[in-house]
């Protein structure tokens, strides 16, 4: 279970309804509800605590600007969590591109046909659970390509559903499942190489 409980869906609906009435008046509630989750997501993606807060603030600033451009109807229908994480994902993907990790990025691909990938609904396997320390997972996550990193973190760290991740990334559910699973395999391979 995450240390940062995810907002209940009805809270999201109420926030979206408040945003539909008045963006500025409702916006602090949006920030309070999602700031910890956004900062944490950004920090995991960038693996840079010092920059995480600045980037996360930028996420909310861009969100606010976008909200003012939306109709009340569109604001009322927003699924805020995945919408904010999508902005965060885009910003961090650019930031990751600007500052690549020190070693070769990982993108596990053994050439096996995608149909051969095992049960994608399974949780992280024993290698992950037996990793020497969380730091070794952090090292492996940091080496994932941005596309896999986002899907892996959302699925296996933040426990988002595939539907939500698909909405966040603007990709089909099948693509998202494949990315998250490839991320998992790559992290596992890295941990095995580290002789865990």
């Amino acid at each position, binding site marked *: 279970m995450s240390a940062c409980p995810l907002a209940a869906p009805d809270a999201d609906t109420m926030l979206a309804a408040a945003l539909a009435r008045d963006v500025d008046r409702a916006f602090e509630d949006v*920030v309070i509800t999602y700031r*910890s989750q956004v900062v944490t997501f950004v920090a995991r993606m960038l693996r840079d605590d010092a920059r*995480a807060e600045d980037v996360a603030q930028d996420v909310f600033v861009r969100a606010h600007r976008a909200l003012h451009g939306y109709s009340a109807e569109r604001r009322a229908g927003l699924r805020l969590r995945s919408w904010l994480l999508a902005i965060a994902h885009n910003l961090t993907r650019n930031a990751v591109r600007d500052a690549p990790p020190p070693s070769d990025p990982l993108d596990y691909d053994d050439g096996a046909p995608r149909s051969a990938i095992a049960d994608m609904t399974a949780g992280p396997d024993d290698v992950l*659970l037996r990793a020497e320390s969380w*730091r070794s997972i952090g090292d492996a996550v940091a080496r994932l390509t941005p596309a896999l990193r986002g899907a892996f973190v959302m699925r296996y760290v933040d426990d988002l559903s595939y539907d939500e991740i698909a909405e966040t990334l603007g990709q089909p559910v099948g693509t998202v499942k494949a990315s998250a699973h490839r991320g998992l395999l790559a992290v596992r391979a890295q941990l095995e190489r580290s002789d865990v």
Partner: protein
Amino acid sequence: MSESNLRDYRDATQRSVSPSFTTGVFAAIGVDRYTICPSAIGEVFVAWSAPGVSAVRLAGDEETFEAWYAERFGRRTVPAVEDDPISTAARAKLQGHDVAVPIDLRECSPFEQRVLHTAAEIAPGNARPYRWLAREIGAPDATRAVGNALGRNPVPLLIPCHRVIRTDCSVGGYVFGSDTKRALLERELDFGAVEHVVNQGFRYVACDKGYFCLPTCGDIATRVDTTGYFGLRSVEEAHAHHLTPCGICRPIAA
């Protein structure tokens, strides 16, 4: 290892958010926030943004306050959900605690800022004349402009413009009314003793340590007619007693 290291990773990389995070976001989007704080004159609206507190006004109708704020500052202010370090400091100061509160005077002219910064240095238990403040900022002929600048003080109570009074120690104008100004002064110093001294025609008070003060310098008015303390009608009279001006209230120009 039985416990999931993925969970350890999740917990270890969980980030806390700094107390100024939300204020930073609101500064960037150009929207200020306000809250209600108890104070010596009742509940007040306190509006603030990243640089500091921008406005203090008597609490009342929210729409009226928000319209006044937008008109004066050219920015929107909305009710705050949470306190941050700035509003927490303002809340403490308005309840009488001696804490530093960042103030946002960007909207004021440079002249107004000089007046307000100087007024901010007048300690509790003291009062100073408008003319004194004009002299202190190097504009001795601008007494009326000083009064106007104090009248536009966006953060009364936090910048204590109520401590600036007329030379004859009558209280003068105030954004919350002269009666409120007098009530505030009476909470902070023995204003009756000051008036008693002034009504006898004294402009200064001699102190037993060899200097002379304004009657509103701390509690000196309450000591008149005790050993070493007596009223003075003029600077010449002070000089005749070989007294020097007090370095705190600076009763005459250097």
